[in-house]
């Protein structure tokens, strides 16, 4: 009766998210037709996303952070056919819907590079715990999107926080956890209808405590950090051989198709982006070395609590670090937290570092603006001079870059997807709220219009039959 047990929520957070489980991601629509064999998988589970209906919209007299470091006061912004058409001091567009944005702020839609929405849905029950295929240390064959529950109420909550796109990763129990995918934040009844068109897959890898704990506790490899490294290297050796085999001109000499190897091969071919859960500095440096041994590219280190210790290395290698503002202490590899972490990464090598503020959390994703505010303030206390316009990059263009979607979204530039947030005030203030959110030029959230507020099937009539869970 008195057996003390770890609080389930804590256990969940340790295993499910922050402890980092890997993902395996393969597939991409950017695969070069000339140099690799067409496996017939490039269009498997492809996006069927279609923007919602929209009309041309002109925001008048807005203050704008463009997500690239630019700040524009009292500017107009014209959207049409789902795209950003014009940014200027005085735009006239007769006949279009005009939204007065005086004293308000416009930013690009917020992007979270690390989410488990839909794979660790709410309520947090075992029947919806679909984020970690923790049955073997290498599960590069699984795809997070195949676990996604489209009715997760967390999507709509994130939307109210201005999140227009998010990258869903498998958890971090495994060395290779499986593929991650990027979504537009519009609940639909199929997963494919939510997938961000053209976004590459990622492959989740995980360093450190999680894989060695999960498998070490089962008396199997890996049970140590050196076991982790051996596991990665063995898998890459197999992948190199598989990729070579698949490039054989004689079809009969090609290996039997293998889902896990497809994913790793996709990384080697540059089609799948590595999203690597890794906390400690020396482990991140080892992963960089590993990527050179097998000639692949790491896109982002996730959680990266100690990234500040190797900020120059990450800048030199062109690797982004995705970080929390201040979470720490829940495990040993998260012990050396500094609030200036994000700023130090950002400022490395004359400001060429790629810093991202991520959530890995269904509450945090709703307040990424506040998390960025804390990180910016800590950086400035540490002696940097980081403007709000600059810090906006950490939750917009930088995560877009890390997700491989910067060509489409993540900044306010002519020609990009009209993924836009209108804030009631300074986006870095705790008091400001997202008033309107647009995805591809369509209103998907309006704080004043209940008809433009998504209610998932889960929310519908669940407490009182005649009302909804959240209004």
């Amino acid at each position, binding site marked *: 009766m008195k057996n003390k047990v770890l609080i389930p929520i804590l256990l969940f957070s*340790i295993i499910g998210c922050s402890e980092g489980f890997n993902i395996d991601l393969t597939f991409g629509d950017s695969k070069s037709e000339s140099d690799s064999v067409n496996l017939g998988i490039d269009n498997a589970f492809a996006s069927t996303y279609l923007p919602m209906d929209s009309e041309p919209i002109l925001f008048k007299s807005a203050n704008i952070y463009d997500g690239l470091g630019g700040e524009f006061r009292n500017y107009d912004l014209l959207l049409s056919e789902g795209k950003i058409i014009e940014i200027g001091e005085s735009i006239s567009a007769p006949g279009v819907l005009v939204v007065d944005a005086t004293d308000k702020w416009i930013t690009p839609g917020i992007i979270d590079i690390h989410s488990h929405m839909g794979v660790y849905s709410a309520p947090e029950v075992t029947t919806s715990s679909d984020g970690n295929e923790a049955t073997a240390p290498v599960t590069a064959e699984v795809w997070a999107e195949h676990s996604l529950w489209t009715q997760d109420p967390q999507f709509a909550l994130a939307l109210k926080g201005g999140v227009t796109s998010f990258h869903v990763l498998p958890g971090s129990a495994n060395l290779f956890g499986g593929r991650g995918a990027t979504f537009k934040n519009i609940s639909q009844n199929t997963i494919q209808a939510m997938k961000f068109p053209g976004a590459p897959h990622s492959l989740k890898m995980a360093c450190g405590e999680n894989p060695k704990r999960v498998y070490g506790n089962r008396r199997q490899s890996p049970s140590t950090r050196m076991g982790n490294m051996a596991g990665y290297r063995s898998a890459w050796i197999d992948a190199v051989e598989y990729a070579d085999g698949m490039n054989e001109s004689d079809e009969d000499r090609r290996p039997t198709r293998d889902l896990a190897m497809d994913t790793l091969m996709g990384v080697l071919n540059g089609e799948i982006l590595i999203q690597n859960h890794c906390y400690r500095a020396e482990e991140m440096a080892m992963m960089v070395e590993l990527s050179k041994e097998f000639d692949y590219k790491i896109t982002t280190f996730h959680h990266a609590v100690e990234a500040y210790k190797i900020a120059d290395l990450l800048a030199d290698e062109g690797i982004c670090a995705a970080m929390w503002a201040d979470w720490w*202490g829940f495990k040993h590899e998260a012990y050396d937290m500094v609030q200036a972490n994000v700023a130090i990464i950002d400022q490395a090598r004359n400001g060429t570092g790629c810093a991202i503020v991520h959530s890995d959390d269904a509450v945090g994703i709703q307040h990424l603006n506040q998390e960025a505010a804390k990180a910016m303030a800590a950086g400035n206390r540490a002696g940097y001079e980081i403007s709000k316009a600059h810090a906006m990059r950490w939750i917009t263009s930088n995560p877009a870059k890390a997700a491989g979607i910067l060509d489409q979204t993540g900044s306010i530039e002519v020609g990009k997807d009209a993924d836009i947030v209108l804030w009631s005030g300074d986006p870095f203030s*705790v008091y400001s709220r997202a008033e309107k959110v647009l995805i591809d030029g369509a209103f998907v959230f309006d704080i004043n219009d209940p008809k433009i507020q998504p209610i998932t099937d889960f929310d519908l009539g669940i*407490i009182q039959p005649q009302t909804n869970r959240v209004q």
Partner: protein
Amino acid sequence: MKSLSLTLFIIFAVNISSETVLLKGGLVHTANGESARTQDILISDQIIVGVGTNLIIDGNTRVIELNGLPVTPGLISPMSNLGIVEINALDVTRDDESDLLSAGFSIFHAFNPHSTGIPWNRSNGVTSAMSTPSASSFPIFGLGSHFILDGSLEIKGSKDIAMFGRLGASYGSRAETLSMLESLLDIGKMVKTMSIQEILEMNLADQLELQSQDIIALGKVANDRMPLVLETNRAVDILQALSMKKKYGLNLVLVSVEEAPMVLDQIKESNTPVIIDPMDNIPNSFDELGSSLDLGKILDQAEIPIMFSTQRSHNYHLMRQGAGNAVAYGMSYETAIKGMSNTVAQTFRLNNRGSIEVGKLADIVVWDGDPLEPSSFPKMVMIEGQLQDLSSRSSRLTERYTNTENKPSSYKH
């Protein structure tokens, strides 16, 4: 300019004690419910001896010009693991769970004043905290104590001042949990008329695996109005807790209460304070379907006393961010400030602190901006009249890794 004079003062004043100090011209949030206004605070020998605009001082009084910076009481965490958990995922660093005791499990003597979480939270404005046992499969986890976060080995605080537990979805049926809670409270009532030894020999005590410490603690809850702090969320569970409060005359505090808006009148009538996480709007369980960011506003409008917990471990100062979000969603600013200090003091009967009023101990924080903005940070922290050093392991690491000297970081110190 302002910040410079303040910084210099702190450098010189850290070790100065028992002098008279005037904090001049701060925007003072007294946390007694009134709006902030610019006034001075006079502190002598650990105690606030004056709050006002024309305080009389003598020539020996040290004057610190605050130039309009916001001032609040030191923050008091109503529920933390400070000093008893260093790293959650490392059992050998945890002292928050007991295999032997339940209701009577005291963490007081496990408190480590050198835990790295203490300087970190102190530098972020938390001057004292309730530290509590962690959740267990038993409905009652044990006793929480209040600690002053000055890092001294001479541990200052109040031992075993509240009991913590949970009612709702956990392990087994809540019907059983309810019946166990009632049995435990029945045993507590027996302490008035029976000896501990007699109670220990009862079947019921044996079935509940109670030790003498458990029974003594239950007696304090059942007879002496020691606060019983119960985490509960589902509307109907809240009603069960309130009816237990009535039946046993409990000094009840409710935690989380995500479905409180559905039973608002009953909570208000029962005069029960609550501890909430204003940022938790996730329906994490089927007990929390009513979870919403409007909770703080709704409770405030019903004039229910509100305190703030934080979702994650280690950063108890983030109650500020929670309070700020509560205000963004409609809670009054004064309630939010009070909820981080005075309401906690009143709820846990910490009678000599929690507000900036004459006679209170001088636990005071001066902020570089609006204390409810997450980007604000303390410029000065005072505990019982003593200015505190604001360094932490985190600030030391920051200094080391922003030092651009060309040598190994292990030589940068």
